[in-house]
């Protein structure tokens, strides 16, 4: 067993050595350099294109998906090794994709064979970029209150209404979407899960400008949009179950993301470099205490993820703990950026100009304020913990 794994590590290392372009072994300067794939995507370099093609070909953009759907077919141990080897050479992610992190797991669980074969391989290869259609103007925390009606027209559904907070909706090729297929039953029981091409006639996308000055989210309007019946996933009116499953993945992704940024920039070290120290101690005792509290929590959180992962491996089910991960991971990320702003002081205030990379820090800081809102607010996560883990009433 461990011989097999050693062999896998050797082969993986050799393959990466040959196939990961040198330019892809330098950390990204900004998220603008990320590779999202999709029909409209313009590669910033040959290296970026090659890296995606090669990883996609190998199925390693979705390393633990079954080979028959284009995935890498790796088991947990192999996946861990692959991630370690990628980290070892500082490899950039070949592809960042909602298709992989969100839709894929749901399709694998709820999709029929035809749907899996049709939709999963293009996700792995980064050919189709997916957008999420969940929230509506009157369905935020109360997501199950969503109203966008999809009416059965015999051979297709006809969709109207609108969605909001669709991440990068203006770049999405296809959308996975929660729609109302039965308005006359309790709200959770009349929701279905559908997929459609964003080029379908009747769809309008409008970006929303945020306090950061950026527009990572969009509003999407539907006017008599035709959705073929083959593009409805799972049982009709049982979409809420899929939605919950998918939200769990989203929560985990958001909290893992908070954590991966943790590895990048040790705050205490940054602070002593920027502000200066006295006898090895940061020259601002209260900031130092704030940073220490933060870093202690950050380390404790990393260990908790390690422990829960090991428990899952040993057969314990994850359950609602992912809600707490989402809550704590995003709260930590907000704290991290608050502290980064404190550390960089006046320099952190810049909004434009080359020196500040167009106010990157200030804008990133503002962006993090949404972390504890998107994918279910902190308050909703705490409700879930109270109800499903602690068993508190009502």
């Amino acid at each position, binding site marked *: 067993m461990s011989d097999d794994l050693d062999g896998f590590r050797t082969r993986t290392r050799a393959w990466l050595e040959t196939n990961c372009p040198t330019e892809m072994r330098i950390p990204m300067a900004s998220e603008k350099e990320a590779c999202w794939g999709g029909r409209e995507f313009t590669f910033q370099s040959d290296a970026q294109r090659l890296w995606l093609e090669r990883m996609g070909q190998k199925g390693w953009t979705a390393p633990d998906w079954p080979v028959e759907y284009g995935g890498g077919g790796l088991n947990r141990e192999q996946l861990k090794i692959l991630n370690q080897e990628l980290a070892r050479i500082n490899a950039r992610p070949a592809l960042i994709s909602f298709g992989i992190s969100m839709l894929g797991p749901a399709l694998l669980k709820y999709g029929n064979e035809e749907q899996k074969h049709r939709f999963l391989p293009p996700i792995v290869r980064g050919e189709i970029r997916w957008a999420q259609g969940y929230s509506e103007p009157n369905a935020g925390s109360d997501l199950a209150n969503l109203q966008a009606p999809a009416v059965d027209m015999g051979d297709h559904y006809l969709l109207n209404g609108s969605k909001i907070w669709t991440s990068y909706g203006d770049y999405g090729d296809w959308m996975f979407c929660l729609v109302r297929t039965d308005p006359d039953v309790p709200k959770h029981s009349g929701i279905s899960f559908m997929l459609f091409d964003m080029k379908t006639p009747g769809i309008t996308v409008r970006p929303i400008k945020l306090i950061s000055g950026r527009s990572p989210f969009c509003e999407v309007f539907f006017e008599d949009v035709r959705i073929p019946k083959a593009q409805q996933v799972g049982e009709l009116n049982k979409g809420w179950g899929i939605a919950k499953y998918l939200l769990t993945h989203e929560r985990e992704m958001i909290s893992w993301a908070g954590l991966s940024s943790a590895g990048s920039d*040790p705050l*205490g*070290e940054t*602070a*002593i470099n920027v502000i200066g*120290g006295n006898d*090895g*101690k*940061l020259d601002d005792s209260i900031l*130092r*205490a704030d*940073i*220490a*509290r933060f*870093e*202690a*929590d950050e*380390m*404790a*959180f990393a*260990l*908790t993820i*390690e*422990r829960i992962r*090991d*428990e899952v*491996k*040993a057969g314990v089910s994850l359950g609602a*703990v992912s809600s*707490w991960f989402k*809550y*704590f991971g995003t709260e930590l990320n907000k704290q991290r950026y608050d502290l980064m702003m404190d550390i960089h002081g006046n320099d952190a205030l810049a909004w434009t100009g080359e020196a500040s990379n167009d106010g990157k820090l200030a804008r990133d800081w503002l962006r993090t304020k949404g972390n504890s809102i998107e994918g279910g607010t902190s*308050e909703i*996560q*705490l*409700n879930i*913990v*109270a*109800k499903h*883990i*602690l*068993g*508190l*009433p*009502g």
Partner: protein
Amino acid sequence: MMALVINEEQTMLRDAARDFLNNRAPVSHHRQLRDSGEEPGFSRDLWAEMVEMGWASIIIPEEFGGLDYGYTGLGLVLEESGRTLTPSPLISTALLGTSALILSGNQQLCEQWLPQIASGEKLVSLAFEESSQHRPSTVETGAEPEGKAYCLNGSKIAVMDGGCADAFIVSVRTRRGEDPCEGISMFLVPADSEGLSTKTTKLLDNHRACDLQLKNVMVGRHQLLGSLHGGCDILRQTLDRGRIGMAAEMLGIAIETFERTMQYLKERKQFGVPIGSFQALQHRAAVLFGEIELCKSVVLKALQAIDENSDQLPLLASLAKAKCGQTAKLATAEGIQMHGGIGMTDAFEIGFFIKRWRALNQQLGDSRFHLDRFARLKGY
């Protein structure tokens, strides 16, 4: 690297400890001891039973009559004893005194004392503190060489279970230099040594601590732990082991108060509904749940770090002590607040936990001390 879960042997040890403590020494045992005023603050009969179960020797190597189960095992027992608030010399002797001896590398002392600790015949306490704040490198107690012996003079405070100890492991200054850590030596001093006296204080958690007076106490060179002037390392490593064990006990306190409080939130009705249905309480409960999850991971990692002799041990010891100190503080305070008026009464057990937390948080460095050390170890 070990998986961050406990193994089968450790699970059995924990379950046995839980059964034993629930049956033989629940919180009512602590109350009864307190009310009776029995010295030395724990039941010697109960300790004999714990010894029988091997708890005095969990970390003692087999060659000295121990079980050699490792610190993770002892930590699990301490966590359980935190849940029942069971007083015993587990921390003072089975963890601190024993660790110092094991770390000393002094074969003769280990052969003499460890088997007797394992068999429950002897108790050995660590005497290192000289000021009300935790300052282990502030050592004024002196040791002057006299022939092949040393003459000790000075005093120590806050010696856990010192009043009933058969010997003390004492930090003394044998050399003065720029670095206060340098020039500290550690001696084992039998309690019946001439010139040694103790004065015991009952603490808020009904544990006992003593002031130790040393007046021209003579100790032989063979009673030195580790090297002359180089005792700081043994002291620091011993303290780190103690800190992690105390973090484990605080984790037990946090878990127990939390579980009791959740139960109460489901039972207690006001305005015609269980108070646990109020979101103001639910969110605080959920936050506390998470803090306890963090502590579980940190404590287990720190215990494993001792058993693996990891170079992360000092950092993890401070992380565990700081984090569990903060979390048990929150858990015990929320426990009282959420119980309302009855939480303030002596008749109800929930208020006992905050007293034990206060002592555990203070001893061997409070959360602030350890956050400061955490930052220092991380280079800022």
